[in-house]
């Protein structure tokens, strides 16, 4: 700060008065200006470089998030605007709202049905890919392919595949003597269909993450275990899994945060209402329905803030678990 001020004040400056040579005035003036700008550059430019990120994040990320609390404490609709403060009326309504609890139940249900098989399968795939194998890049690319597709497009294709009468999945199940399933009608069957869409996309991605972590485990550990007579199975459970624990927790955290906001797949599969009885309406879909279909911004914000708090608590729990395991 002091440097800045000194550079900015031209005549009364110490350096200027100590050099009273009238003939060289033009030169010193130019030099001084140069020094001033160099100093400005060193002091101010770093802030200018990070400013766009923080300013844009504050306007379009942080402000809307915090403003959600404010809106949730008001009667607030699209047409009427702010209709006044109503304390915690939306929150007391929320606690008694069966649709809200239903949506939470669905969100967590789909999460479990999707994530558990997904991570197990990813682990299996990573284990096979860590062997000496031909065309390893072909298989890696093949695993990543679903990750790089349009979510909505794939959800449309899967919705057709899960069709009751003409879907290929029921057709294939028919060979095993299973009667056509109306996937959208039942709670569990709709969860399974949505979980398949999610897993199709994310299993390969997680397998690659596990594969990277596996290849970082020193081979000597396995060799020592093999010499001691440990079977492959035992090596997997007693070396691979414990060594991968931080990575497994990482993938669980990322999946948790992602899955709590599940939206696209179920919306394409049904509608924002999530089936005739809301049997696959997630909380994010409920927020959308309340806020943008019924235009009730206040109540929608209350649900959004509640879901935000749930995500924060889950993340904190996960972080706590991680540090505990790392410390142990």
């Amino acid at each position, binding site marked *: 700060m002091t440097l800045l001020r000194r550079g900015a004040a031209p005549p009364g400056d110490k350096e200027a008065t100590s050099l009273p040579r009238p003939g060289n005035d033009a030169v010193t003036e130019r030099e001084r200006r140069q020094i001033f700008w160099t100093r400005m*550059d*060193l002091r101010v430019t*770093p802030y200018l*470089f*990070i400013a766009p*990120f923080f300013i*844009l994040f504050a306007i379009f990320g942080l*402000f*809307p*998030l*915090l*403003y959600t609390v404010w809106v949730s404490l008001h009667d607030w609709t699209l047409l009427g605007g702010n209709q006044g403060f109503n304390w915690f009326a939306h929150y007391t309504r929320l606690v008694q709202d069966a649709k809200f609890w239903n949506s939470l139940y669905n969100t967590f249900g789909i999460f479990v049905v999707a994530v558990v098989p997904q991570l197990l399968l990813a682990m299996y*795939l990573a284990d*096979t890919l860590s*062997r*000496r*194998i031909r065309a390893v*890049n072909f*298989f890696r*690319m*093949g*695993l*990543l*392919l*679903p990750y*790089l*597709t*349009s979510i*909505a*497009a794939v959800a*449309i*294709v*899967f*919705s*057709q*595949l899960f069709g009751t009468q003409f879907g*290929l999945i029921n*057709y294939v199940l028919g060979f095993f003597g299973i009667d056509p399933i109306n996937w959208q009608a039942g709670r569990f069957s709709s969860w399974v269909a949505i979980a398949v869409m999610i897993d*199709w996309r994310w299993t390969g*991605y997680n397998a*690659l*993450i*596990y594969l*990277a972590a596996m*290849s970082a485990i020193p081979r000597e550990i396995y060799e020592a275990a093999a010499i001691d007579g440990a079977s492959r199975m035992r090596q997997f459970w007693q070396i691979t899994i414990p060594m991968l624990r931080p990575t497994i927790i990482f993938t669980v*955290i990322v999946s948790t*945060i992602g899955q709590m*906001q599940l*939206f*696209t797949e179920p*919306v*394409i599969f049904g509608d924002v209402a999530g089936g005739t009885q809301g049997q696959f309406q997630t909380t994010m879909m409920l*927020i*959308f329905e309340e*806020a*943008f279909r019924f235009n009730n911004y206040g109540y*929608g*914000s209350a649900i*959004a803030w509640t*879901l935000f708090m749930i995500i924060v608590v889950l993340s904190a729990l996960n972080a706590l678990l991680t540090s505990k395991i790392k410390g142990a």
Partner: protein
Amino acid sequence: MAATSTPSSPSVSAVPQSAKKRKRKNGGSIGMREATPLTYIGLSLTILLSVFPLWWMFVVASRDTAAASARPPYLWPGGNFLENLERLFTNTTANFTLGLLNSTISATAVALSVVFFSSLAGFSLAKLRFKGRNVAAVGVVLTMAVPVQMGIIPLLMLMEWFGWRGQITAIIVPFMVSGFGVFMMRQYCIQAIPDELLEAARMDGCSTFRIYWNVVLPALRPAMVVLGLLTFMTQWNEFTWALAVLTPANPTVQIAINQLNQSAYSRDFALMFTGSVVATLPLLILFFVLGRQLIGRIMEGAIK
């Protein structure tokens, strides 16, 4: 979670190299397990399942709607793709042409903007000295951990105040910066740019911006490509926000195919699947061009 692993992570380009080296070294050792036929069968089956929905998408898109329900099912493309394409682009409920244009513009603009602002901030946080630098770096990581998507309702109100609701500005401006991008660029700067290089440029009288432009940007190019691709992909796929803020009259590709999906009383699968093909194609092209770099990036992220 990411904060604990900030300082000593390997760079984007360094990891595939070291991984390759490790593989070669282990190739001859006893520790590496041999693949059995079962390994190949399992993997091939997985690849088949990965590819099948995309293949099926193209099969139906190149036939007619009846083909989607034919028994036994067609497994080979037909000859109707161009005809379906024409029907798609002339369909008035979907506004597909406009959607394609909007998606291309918004995803490109957001990718360029994120790459630019991220490299700027990442360079500053990694290599420049200023008060509050560490606080700012932690702040960036925190922004990544916060699910800002929960602020969707006030964000929509903000768009209304700006008069951007229904405009493509609404799907560009809120996404112009990314905490993940800044974090990634900072990591890469720490690894890839030696301090001596910056000092030499400084000695030559370069301003900070010239150093950024002439020294840092060329060195960051590999990481910028990966970040640009990831951002383009995320933005192309954006659904929730686009559905909230845009109308079917001025859609993105995703909203256009959703429109086809929701509106048709008797569903025209050939049309929907053709739309899906067009919505997926740009991503697949990017995947085949840059897939290997992306795999390197994902696997590097895992080791951190």
